[in-house]
């Protein structure tokens, strides 16, 4: 018997939940106030709900189908898995997106799919959904399409005209890992597709000669995802791969997804609790690389095995390893130096730079800016404050370490 829409929605959203991204930000501003139709995007995304896993629900994140001819070990939808299978028609996806959007449940659609028949066939159906939403229903909300590396160039090009963001998952940090766990996927194909996307985006961003207008092609850029903890790759390897992806393909984001046990799991994979803290540290390191002027080497060289410290955040670990560079004078130090002080974020640094033009800052000033004094005190000097060689204390890291916790078995 054919499953009801509700039953299929359950199957096809369950199948999509291992994709970490739910971002709806970074695209162009547009709305329906003058042009009519439905939907708007206003720069920053909106999280319409949060699930008890603490993750934002911004988009209707579903698969077109979870039938798949690939057999990637880590994936819930691999062909050898015994999970329930289902598929939507393109019309059903369009209907769900619009009805969910009208009730303000979502910002838009994040559509992905198992590979059925061929890459082009699957990609064609996904592009059709995006095209219908935009051209038939005047939908101006957010659309994120997962693209399939082997799909034809003309389909990718059309996808970019309708979608805000395109993404291809790199899946695992090393080519060897992909070869082992996703034997049908070709890492060189994935990289080449990302390269083609970047070239396409740059080409479209050039003003045309006739109209001087820039064409819009995936204005929210491209992103990717790596699974953490399924293979043996170290954090240094993972972050090195991220840095190369950011540098090579202009990615907006690399998402890290702690490998999470899946139903009917392959025997080749560990049945472990997802390494959530490791995932969190990787995101912190990723931020340090992109916004705080750290090199990957600086972040990962603090431990010999190339792993990040799970107890302390990577910036604090770096500071504890470079005590000779502290304390830093908050009234004099340059932006780049302030950014390296544990407890100071990019916004606080901006406020400090603005405020100190008018007065010398004291600890109270920093407190009012929302800084945690406990964390920052040993690393700075301020008006009326000198840390009594706190940075030389041998138990400094113990001051920040979390309290011991009883471990539990899965």
């Amino acid at each position: 018997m054919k499953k009801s829409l509700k039953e299929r929605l359950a199957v096809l959203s369950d199948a999509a939940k291992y994709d970490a991204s739910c971002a709806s930000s970074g695209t162009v501003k547009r709305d329906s106030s003058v042009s009519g139709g439905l939907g708007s995007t206003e720069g920053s995304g909106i999280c319409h709900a949060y699930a008890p896993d603490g993750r934002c629900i911004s988009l209707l994140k579903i698969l077109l189908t979870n039938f798949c001819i690939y057999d990637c070990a880590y994936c819930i939808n691999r062909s050898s898995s015994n999970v329930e299978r289902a598929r939507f028609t393109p019309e059903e996806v369009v209907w769900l997106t619009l009805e969910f959007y009208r009730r303000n449940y979502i910002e838009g659609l994040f559509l992905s799919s198992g590979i059925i028949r061929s890459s082009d066939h699957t990609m064609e159906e996904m592009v059709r959904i995006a095209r219908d939403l935009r051209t038939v229903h005047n939908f101006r909300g957010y659309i994120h399409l997962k693209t399939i590396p082997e799909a034809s160039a003309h389909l990718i090009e059309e996808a970019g005209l309708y979608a805000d963001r395109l993404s291809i998952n790199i899946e695992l940090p090393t080519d060897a890992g992909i070869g082992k766990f996703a034997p049908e996927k070709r890492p060189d194909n994935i990289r080449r597709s990302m390269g083609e996307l970047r070239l396409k985006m740059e080409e479209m961003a050039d003003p045309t000669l006739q109209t001087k207008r820039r064409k819009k092609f995936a204005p929210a850029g491209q992103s990717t995802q790596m699974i953490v903890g399924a293979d043996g790759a170290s954090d240094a390897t993972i972050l090195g791969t991220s840095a190369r992806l950011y540098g090579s393909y202009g990615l907006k984001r690399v998402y890290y997804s702690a490998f999470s046990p899946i139903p009917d799991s392959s025997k080749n994979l560990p049945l472990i609790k997802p390494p959530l803290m490791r995932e969190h540290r990787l995101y912190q390191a990723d931020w340090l690389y992109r916004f705080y002027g750290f090199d990957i080497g600086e972040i990962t060289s603090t431990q010999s095995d190339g792993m990040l410290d799970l107890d302390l955040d990577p910036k604090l670990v770096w500071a504890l390893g470079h005590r000779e560079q502290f304390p830093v004078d908050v009234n004099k130090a340059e932006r780049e130096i302030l950014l390296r002080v544990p407890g100071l974020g990019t916004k606080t640094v901006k406020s400090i730079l603005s405020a100190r033009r008018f007065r010398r800052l004291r600890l109270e000033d920093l407190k009012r800016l929302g800084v945690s004094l406990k964390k920052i005190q040993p690393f700075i000097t301020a008006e009326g404050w000198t840390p009594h060689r706190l940075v030389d204390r041998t138990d400094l890291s113990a001051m920040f370490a979390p309290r011991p916790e009883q471990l539990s078995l899965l």
Partner: protein
Amino acid sequence: MRYRFSLRGRGDPTEWREAARAFLLAGIVPDFVEWRTMDDADGLFGFDDNHRPPPYPDHPPANVPAAFVKLAEAVLCHSDPTRFALLYRMLFRLVHDRHLLQMASDADVVAARRMAKSVGRDYHKMTAFVRFKELPMPADLAGRRRFLAWFEPDHFIVARVAPFFQRRFNDMDWLIATPKGSASWDGETLRVTDEPAEKPDLRDETDELWRTYYASIFNPARLKVKMMTKEMPKKYWKNLPEAELIPSLIANAEANVMDMARRAASEPLPFHHRIQEAAAKVPAAPKAPAGTIAALKEEARSCTRCDIYCRATQTVFGDGPPDAKVMFVGEQPGDQEDLAGRPFVGPAGKLFNDVIGEVGIDRNSLYITNAVKHFKYEPRGKRRIHQKPNMGEVRQCRWWLTQELELVKPKLVVAMGATALFALTDMRQKLEDVRGEPIAMEDGRTLFVTVHPSYLLRIPDEGRKAEELVRFREDMNRIKRLAA
């Protein structure tokens, strides 16, 4: 004299601004003004005692930075009764101290910013957590679909947020009712009132689909309840259709994960075996005949002879007619070549094209390749910094270059730069010692050495750059004559 002033205080910035301007122009110090709202117990007496002082003669006009106006508009939406006094105090200070707002750690500035932030957060949560329910259409009426929502904001933000919903939900009629006012849209007019509304009784079938989605997208193996309640505080739950599922989702999470762990992988279904068989039967793509450049190129696509390959996008193999008389050898592909998969298409390639175009060499007649076929670089933020391939890598990659030479059999080989020279001759020489003159090679070919075009791009001094460009052009002229 002390003044007492009552406001409606429901987020309308004009009433406070007009009163504050009057007090400021009369030079009334902040301590002498008491601000009240209509809803205060004492304010029941209404606006009777609202009188504004006459302007003080010769008082300078009340000009404030635009940033203060923006800040005040947000703060006035806050529900804190002290907001009017705080803003008037700041206004008064601004007259003497234009830089007040830049003192990010000033107590008043911090307080105002905090209120504005709270209003901003409330705004954001309203855009996120309003849930529209569809009203049934009257049977005999066709027209725009109608939606109704109930929301309970912390602050007086309805008028502030209403345009957001108008920009977004243009093609439907909607009304958002709240205890702090309502907003509605009928396709033509956006109406806003600040009168409190009653909570309506609403139902919508689609909520059931949404709850299904909410429950299925949740991953029970990653339970992080604190994170959820931080972003979706419990105060909002009563108006969110999905929130009723949260307790049971949390309670069953661990059991679900344990259950998943207990069940070992089952045997794949026939579907899987059929796919595997079909995949095995697919005929391999037709191969180019062995011993041709096309076959060599195909083979090089999966080259792993050195470690550069897994950092680069793809192998950038030589390009040009398989029987070209002249072969150009560069160093290695760059950023653009790596993405496009063809040699000399980036900035250096463009310069190269320009120069050979000027001297009359047809690029389509040349076979162009590199000593190393993968791009070696160091990531630096959003860019890739070119790294010189080392001798080991060049030697490994010579495997391909040698075969290219054997298959294309060019009469003339041009080495552009020291790396190409090393790859072709295994000699490390100063470029200047061998540049510009044809050199006979052992295999009967002629070698010509010149600089790499990217060298020309890197010369900072414009004068020297022009000189070097002339020399490069002379080299290309010689090559043209040698090839003829």
